[in-house]
């Protein structure tokens, strides 16, 4: 029951008195075996939800870190099918951690929404964030997902005013991803007090858990965002660690660094632990 995997993860975090840690990595960066080991390191060290990036040649919403990660992945030959196969392999040993595929519309569109939905469900994917499919354009995807209970996770942003939030919430499932800054991934540093009203409005109108992401890199930032949200998304910081393989670091060193950052972030998310 994919959707329940998502809600179970948020329920558990809530009952532990903390915000969920949502971690993003690019599948196939720099190769699929590294991604597999990184996914397990994330989960073993406190990540509650995994976002698995699917590479695209033209990632318009991403900053340099994730752009380069996508290029490394594509250079290694990663396809959308490979990303799904990676998910399936992860599911062989993990039945509980929600797995969200995050990417752009064109590869999914070319595979065909229905074919993709069946394959994603079969691979143990729980939902998708397709960055360039706003509510106005995601109906075919929602229809294709209906038989599988795959979640259509939508983005809300600082430009999403109250009336627009209803459009964003209508038809959304799983959780909402609140983009903390106007900008690309990993660029600006978000300020909790600026976005708290938007996050609250997203929670109230959608009734879904709301995760905050874009630009959160340290335990301290994560703690600040945890205080105002149901989940904190960290992406570029993990991607930056993985990129060090290019400079000659070994897979083991990378996996260990990922584990360390996950522990640091995770320990910061206890809502009762006070805001730094």
């Amino acid at each position, binding site marked *: 029951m994919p959707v329940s995997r998502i809600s179970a993860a948020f329920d558990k975090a809530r009952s532990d008195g903390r915000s969920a840690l949502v971690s993003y990595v690019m599948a196939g960066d720099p190769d699929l075996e590294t991604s597999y080991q990184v996914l397990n390191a994330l989960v073993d060290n406190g990540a509650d939800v995994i976002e698995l990036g699917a590479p695209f040649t*033209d990632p*318009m919403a991403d900053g340099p870190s994730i752009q380069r990660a996508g290029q490394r992945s594509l250079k290694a030959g990663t396809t959308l099918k490979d990303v799904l196969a990676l998910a399936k392999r992860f599911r062989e040993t993990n039945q509980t951690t929600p797995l969200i595929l995050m990417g752009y519309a064109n590869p999914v*569109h070319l595979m065909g929404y229905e074919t993709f939905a069946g394959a994603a469900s079969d691979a143990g994917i729980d939902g998708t964030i397709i960055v360039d499919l706003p509510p106005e354009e995601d109906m075919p995807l929602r229809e294709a997902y209906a038989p599988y209970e795959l979640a259509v996770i939508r*983005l809300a942003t600082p430009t999403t005013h109250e009336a627009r939030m209803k459009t964003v919430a209508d038809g959304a499932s799983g959780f909402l991803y609140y983009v903390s800054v106007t900008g690309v991934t990993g660029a*600006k540093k978000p300020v909790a007090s600026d976005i708290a009203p938007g996050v609250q409005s997203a929670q109230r109108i959608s009734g879904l858990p709301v995760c905050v992401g874009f630009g959160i890199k340290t335990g301290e930032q994560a703690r600040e965002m945890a205080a105002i949200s149901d989940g904190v998304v960290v992406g570029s910081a993990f991607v930056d660690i993985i990129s060090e393989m290019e400079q000659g670091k070994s897979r083991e060193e990378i996996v260990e660094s990922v584990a360390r950052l996950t522990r640091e972030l995770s320990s910061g998310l206890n809502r009762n632990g006070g805001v730094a």
Partner: protein
Amino acid sequence: MDLRNTWDKWPDANGRFGEFGGRYVAETLMPLILDLEKEYRAAQKDPEFQAQMDDLWKHYVGRPSPLYFAERLTDHFGGAKIYFKRDELNHTGAHKINNCLGQVLLAMRMGKKRIIAETGAGQHGVATATVCARFGLQCVVFMGATDVERQKPNVFRMRLLGAEIVPVESGTGTLKDAMNEALRDWVTNVDDTFYCIGTAAGPHPYPELVRDFQSIIGREAKEQMLEREGRLPDAVMACIGGGSNAIGLFHPFVEDEGVRLIGVEASGHGVETGMHAAALNGGKPGILHGNRTYLLQDDDGQIIDAHSISAGLDYPGIGPEHAFLRDSGRAEYLTCTDDEALEAFQLCTRLEGIIPALEPSHALARIGEVAKEMGPDQIIIMNLCGRGDKDIFSVAGHLGIDM
């Protein structure tokens, strides 16, 4: 379905031309493009806006551009009469300024002070920088690093006009990459920035408003042809990258069923080599840069870099209305290689005393065959959408001439 009198009703309320178009943007940009659409609807009903456009078109751009009978080319091919719509005589040397004026006036209505643009050949960048200088607005132009190198004269012109040029290194450093970077800038600077898109593509309402602003080309051509020959042409032709000059020429003729609409895509080294920019002739439908349209892409849906000798046609997609006109059979789309364009460039220069840009040289390269199959009692209008001054260095290079 009876398609008569239905061509004109597109896009629909969702920004669709049949199955193409739409609004495929990240949520951050949705409120912005919805605002833009609202402002454009208001401007369309505002006689003041139209009057301001007309005045600038006439006194600043130099419209109407002439409709010129290319007598020697007509004789050379020995077929239909060939007319040029002389949009290369516009201020800044191409059709691009028609659209820039419209968008910058819209930006000012919306209170935006910073204009960003992408550019390939540099013509749209120069036109945007020009209009920004005219109205005292900040202008930032994103240009692929490869294009910065091959279009040096235009880069310098933009700098003279006060624009900041941002060379884009990602991808192959061409138009597609410049557009990605412009979108990233827009998503970052949502409050004060207006994105002035140069072609009839992107998320709705851009394909519609760019078409509408460029339709001055076809409206004038139609009126001039009626005055000159007392009848409509039998065909209108234009080169296609994103397709703004072509849609501007085609649109006013789209309801005139007797008028063939012929676009010419850049096939680079040849469609069969994979090194080309012919999205309709060598691509598949997909989603990029805010719209669903034909794209050059691989079997995994990754975008393939386009190739063309002409920086202005070097784009892996095409405006959604062209995709629609092609699939519905209303328009035809031919191709032209780099070498054929170079030959046509020289032929037109020698026979007509007009140095065309490499972009319309692609349409020129096919016009002979089309003219011959049509016969001398028929008429073709081709949009000579840009002048070739910007290309002389790169043409010299291709011809092996050391300047």
